[in-house]
């Protein structure tokens, strides 16, 4: 015995009409709008960005603005290439701080979220600390951290971690609690133990939430690292990008400040794109957010 089909499967038209006959004016308009949209998605940002850079360049040239006030975009790129030997190692330092802080935030945030969902008492006890850590501006805490933590690198990671960790914790906790209640009942009926429930139901349910938190935390860990470097200034053996920018500002080397800024922005964009790509890769098969609809 086999049951073939639901009544829901679509019926094919009996006569196979030529495509042009079905292609009426409205459909053509719709298809054209779709094509334009597909091109505009890429073309528009590029055009607007190019125009903005061109406008910046014209502004500098026409008004004859001195380079120690506003360098032209060409000069910024030139400086980036010329100072690459200084800026690139600094970028690696900042990148290392950012990624280490993000990694620790992911591990710590997820573990703590799991602990919170396993034990109400743990959540009651420790959640307020997490909130306090989140709401206290890192700029105001960082000086203390640099006093207590003698290893400058560790102190910087600590600052970036404090900023990045909360979105992961909050989102993952929410996700772990958002498992479908019928599936939870099913787990009870099949007598799943705590570990199985976590492994087969709660963690997969939490994945989209976690990835949302990761996207926020990725940006925040970079911000945290940069802010901490600024606060540390020259005290914390800092040679990251923020330190270079500070240093350049003391020397009124404005083009190098812009070059450093450009690198930071590029890093931020790269982190965003990687987390967005990860999000798409992990959810594309099943989650609403990653599905295309016509």
């Amino acid at each position, binding site marked *: 015995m086999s049951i073939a089909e639901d009544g829901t499967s679509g019926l094919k038209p009996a006569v196979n009409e030529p495509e042009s006959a079905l292609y009426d004016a409205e459909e053509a308009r719709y298809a054209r709008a779709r094509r334009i949209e597909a091109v505009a998605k890429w073309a528009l940002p590029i055009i607007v960005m190019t125009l903005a850079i061109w406008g910046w360049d014209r502004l500098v040239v026409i008004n004859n603005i001195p380079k120690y006030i506003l360098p032209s975009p060409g000069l910024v790129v030139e400086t980036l290439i010329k100072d690459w030997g200084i800026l690139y190692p600094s970028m690696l330092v900042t990148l290392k701080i950012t990624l280490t802080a993000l990694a620790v935030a992911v591990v710590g945030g997820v573990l703590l979220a799991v602990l919170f969902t396993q034990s109400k008492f743990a959540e009651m006890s420790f959640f307020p600390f997490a909130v306090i850590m989140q709401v206290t501006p890192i700029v105001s805490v960082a000086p203390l951290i640099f006093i207590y933590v003698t290893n400058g690198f560790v102190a910087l990671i600590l600052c970036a971690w404090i900023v990045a960790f909360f979105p992961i914790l909050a989102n993952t906790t929410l996700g772990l609690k958002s498992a479908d209640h019928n599936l939870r009942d099913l787990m009870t009926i099949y007598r799943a133990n705590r570990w199985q429930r976590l492994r087969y139901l709660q963690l997969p349910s939490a994945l989209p939430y976690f990835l949302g938190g990761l996207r926020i935390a990725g940006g925040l860990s970079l911000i945290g690292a940069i802010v901490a470097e600024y606060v540390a200034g020259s005290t914390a053996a800092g040679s990251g990008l923020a330190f270079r920018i500070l240093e350049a500002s003391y020397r009124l080397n404005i083009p190098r400040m812009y070059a450093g800024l450009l690198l930071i922005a590029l890093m931020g964009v790269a982190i965003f794109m990687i987390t967005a790509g990860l999000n798409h890769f992990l959810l594309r*098969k099943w989650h609403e957010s990653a599905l295309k609809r016509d």
Partner: protein
Amino acid sequence: MTDIHRDIKPLGERPRILQMQEVDKTFNGNVAALRRMSLTVNEGDLISLLGPSGCGKSTALRLIAGLMRPTRGRIVWDGGQSADDLGVVFQEPTLMPWATVIQNVYLPFRLRGQSLASVRDRIGEVLHLVGLDKFVESYPRELSGGMKMRVSIARALVTNPRLILMDEPFAALDEITRQKLNNDLLSLKAATGCTVIFVTHSVFESVFLSDRILVMAPRPGRVISEITVDQPYPRDSAFRTSPEYAAIARRTSDTLMAAMGNTEMEAET
């Protein structure tokens, strides 16, 4: 055709599986969801719990599933209860969206620690029974509402449980799909000999499917009448237009109306 088939005996000769004995369920100390509910389930039964919303049908099911405890009374399984006694189908398909059809049906085995390889044949067999052979590696979102429900039914059947609980499984489907699934459920029952408690608010569904209908009334939820549908299986679409079907549907409907009428009058006095 399958190694899991149980022969269904005539109504009077079936061994007992479970008894609900004078069960009360009260919420928050005073809201009586269920009062003096008694129910005997025998092997091979297809019992419908029929009643309006709020009559405690789902509560009764959750009590049997062990998801809550009775306030008073007992639920007794003959020969004791074990983890693989139950299969459940909810009103929603309740599939894991991140898992393929086969992974979803594999879940009960996985929770018992059995490897996929060791039960793959069994899963294939059940998916064949529900007509989803070609969708083994599909994700739930790729399936229609009716097909998702079939996966859910396959998951409930796959462990060959002593009792399957169905909580208005087809209520959210369109009429055509629902009738098709009703037919298919009877075919499945004929093929596997499974025992089912089926919660519904549809008189026609309950008459078509069951050999016994327990009509329930609300406030407090209780069984007010038991109707035996002594029509032989297999039943097909022709049964839906037969005079016997019409007569039983009329009787069931009248019982239900009387129950509701009484309740309303009780509420007024």
